[in-house]
């Protein structure tokens, strides 16, 4: 099998993830109506990324073959889908929902720093305890639980930073510290995975090659178990941090552009002399 064949063929069109995606889309349209715009775009992007994580070759490779694909799955579900989901929510409706004590309680319990931070980072560390990591590959309930908890923890993590209602968000410096420490915790896990000489997820050590793609992975892509784990660790280390960093940049710029007088002053080159 060649790389292009693998990319074309290794899809799971029969996966229940399709059902989840369609149901989520339907629920969204039912609850908020259908209107093309930024929010609908965010929702569509979230669903698309969710599908990439669960039915594309990423999912197939993560299923017992490649630890690095497993990490890509994590990053998609924990770092990219949740902020898009939050961005898809209309602020007015969220504000209305927050008047209900139960919703308010849920937010104040899980969606506030430092609890949300601990959930978001904790879930990532938790699923990398070697036994749990292996279980998430070998057992379907564990796999479903992993996907669901990653998504939920991701939403909790991002909630204080990209809250639909602006006034409920963390302050700009608070958000920067929040995301920066998130980046540090992520880096630390990435470093340990990258340089660990022991297997962080033993199930990937000896894949059962039902699809006949091991020759491609070994010889075509040049991945051994060790280099695969290293690649996974590096994914966690560098690109994951870039996601946080992008958030920090957006927040910092918005924070700094508050003072509009300087824009007036900035026009032309009139000086003192």
């Amino acid at each position, binding site marked *: 099998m060649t790389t292009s064949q693998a990319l074309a063929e290794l899809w799971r069109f029969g996966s229940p993830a399709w059902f989840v995606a369609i149901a989520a889309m339907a629920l969204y349209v039912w609850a908020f109506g259908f209107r093309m715009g930024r929010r609908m775009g965010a929702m569509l992007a979230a669903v698309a990324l969710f599908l990439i994580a669960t039915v594309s070759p990423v999912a197939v490779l993560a299923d017992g073959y490649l630890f690095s694909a497993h990490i890509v799955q994590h990053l998609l579900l924990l770092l990219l889908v949740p902020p898009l989901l939050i961005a898809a929510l209309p602020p007015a409706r969220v504000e209305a929902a927050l008047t209900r004590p139960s919703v308010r309680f849920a937010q104040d319990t899980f969606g506030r720093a430092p609890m949300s931070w601990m959930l978001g980072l904790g879930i990532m560390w938790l699923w990398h305890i070697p036994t749990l990591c292996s279980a998430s590959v070998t057992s379907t309930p564990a796999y479903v639980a992993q996907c669901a908890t990653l998504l939920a923890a991701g939403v909790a993590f991002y909630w204080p930073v990209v809250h639909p209602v602006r006034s409920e968000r963390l302050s700009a410096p608070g958000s920067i510290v929040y995301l920066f420490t998130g*980046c540090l915790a992520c880096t630390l896990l990435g470093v340990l995975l990258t340089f660990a000489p022991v297997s962080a997820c033993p199930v990937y050590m000896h894949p059962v090659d039902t699809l006949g793609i091991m020759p491609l992975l070994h010889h075509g892509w040049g991945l051994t178990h060790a280099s695969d784990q290293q690649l996974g660790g*590096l994914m966690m280390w*560098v690109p994951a941090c870039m996601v946080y960093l992008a958030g920090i940049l957006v927040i910092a710029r918005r924070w*700094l552009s508050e003072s509009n007088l*300087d824009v007036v002053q900035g026009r032309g*080159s009139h000086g003192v002399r």
Partner: protein
Amino acid sequence: MSLEATLEPEVEAAPTGFVSWVTTVDHKRVGIMYLITSVVFFAIAGIEALLMRIQLAVPENDFIAPELYNQLFTMHGTTMVFLVGMPLIAGFGNYLVPLMIGARDVAFPRLNAFSFWLVPFGGLMLHWSFLAGGAPNAGWFSYAPLTELPFNLNEGVDYWLLSLLALGIGSVGSAINIIVTVVTLRAPGMKVSRMPLFIWMIFVTSILIVLAIPALNSAIVMLLVDRHLDAAFFLPDRGGSAVVWQHFFWVFGHPEVYVLILPVFGMISEIIPVFSRKPIFGYSFVAASTVAIGILSLSVWAHHMFAVGMGRGPDLFFTAASLLIAVPTGVKVFNWSATMVGGRIQFTTAMLFCIGFLIEFVIGGLSGVTLASAPIDWQVTDSYYVVAHFHFVLFGGFVFGMAAGLYYWFPKITGRMLSERLGKWQFWLMLIGFNLTFLGMHFLGFMGMPRRVFTYPDLPGYEALNMASTVGTVVIAVSVLVMLYNIAISLKRGEVAGDNPWNAWTLEWAATSPPPEHNFELVPPVRSRRPMFDLAHPEVVRDVPLPPDDAPKRPQAAIVSVVAFIASESMFFLMLLVAFVIYNFFEFGSGPGPLDIRRTGMFSVALFASSATLFVAERHLRRGNGGGATTWLGITMALGLVFLAGQAWEYYDLITAHFTPEGSIFAATFFTTTGFHGFHVFAGLLALLAVTLLRRNGGLGKNEETIVKATGYYWHFVDVVWVFVFSIIYLGRIL
């Protein structure tokens, strides 16, 4: 005001002359002392460079013996980074930060003086090694195992380690001071989005210092344990790993590069707009990208280690991430250039140095981009190409920027202008000398000349390029002499500057030159990023109301400082715990140690309980029950003592059972980590004791609650660290 007048403090009974400088806590005088110290060490390290260049002027030279040559390049690098670069930044930072934000002084003037005095102390200790049997000789990054006892019996390495520890503590102290000053003491109206860019940059730099120095400290203490307690952290033949030193050093070393260059970016961002008579182009990008550069710099250290053989994956990722840093940095260069475009540029000496900075820094940055690529790095690493690269960044960037800062702020600091005529001589001599010295080194590197080698064979082209380089060094030396002469005569006969000789826009120019001890008679209102411009052009900002003073809403200094300190300490313990995991859970595992988990568990309960009792004490204090607070503070300290006693008991048992650092890596990591934690518990106890005693005499005044709270943060932090230490070291081994 004449210079002599400012040397005399205004308070009557205050000490005068030399004593007044030694005892001062005024941020301006501390800043000046920092600057003078760094100029002295700049001269020393410069002479070392001259000696090396004389040795290298011709092939097969025997002017300097190999061993002395090793000491010279080690001392040159170490001195330039830790005793020139860092003190220059701290000096300008100290002098300028309070003035630029309209404050009376830094947040903690005494801590400031203490941080400063550690610099001459550390510098003396480092240089004492010349008299005590030989200076350190393993390069400024002191790679293990070359620095280990079997390979280096020279005590110079110990001097290197201890002085860097002292200098590091000083740097962290000064950085915390700047962070707290910026956070809590800004003038009314100076929102974060109105801070001068120099303040932004020095703020990010300070955060980097606070986070990065502890990584170096952790490596230093491990090497000290190796050298003096006979452990083997970095000795591969006894189960250690030399590569761990490299990782730990560069976790510090890479951010350190940005620690040096970011404040210079800040200076450039102040000076170029003033001499282009235009506001900076893209303020928010310049500020925000600084944050990005700071964060990125913490996670790309491994690009210094491509030659170690980390594997294809790490090489790829670190190449990519390192190249990424070039993006925000490169855009900044466009920001500065765009500021100049269409401006009425005044070619003062300060501006010339800024333009020189732009050109040389871009060259250094581009060679940096090439070095970020692993395959190129393999070809040229440890050659003169690398020497050329970092001198373009650190001399062409850092020194040129600092020179610009000197010419720009000298009138403010002394009340007199530096001579522009001599300044231009200095600039052109330095520009020519610098390029003569370092441009050719790129080619020497490509031709295969290795760095740090005391001589070279007479290969084609080597001699000409090396001779040119040596001549260039002499030209640089002349330019430095011109600068020193300029400073000397300008102090005496320079043109009197007045408050705002450059018609600049930031607050420091509102004070007299030099400023009085209390800095400002009246801080001008801050309605924009350019308060002095507004003062001169009231019509522009007439309608902008002055925002209400938000100072009371800002965080309290005690809390900010303790949080910054905890962040620093967290990095230290993080590195020690990472070392523990690497050495014991990875390949070096040495079997379960003779730890008594149950006993330590019991003593841990005492420590955790002490956190609870401290909460109770704080609650009593909030409710105004001083007596109850004292009681519960006492109980907290007693519980802390119980924990320490338990640890002492444990150590006694272990050591009598011959479980010692030289025996196994596990023992070494165990004692290092728990030992430093115990030391921190002890420090926390002292802090609590001090607070308790001061409270009894009413010495804390109205800040009592905040100070107890801040001390409490530290105590809780020590407990939290123990949660991790206990889980990893004790529980981790039975899992």
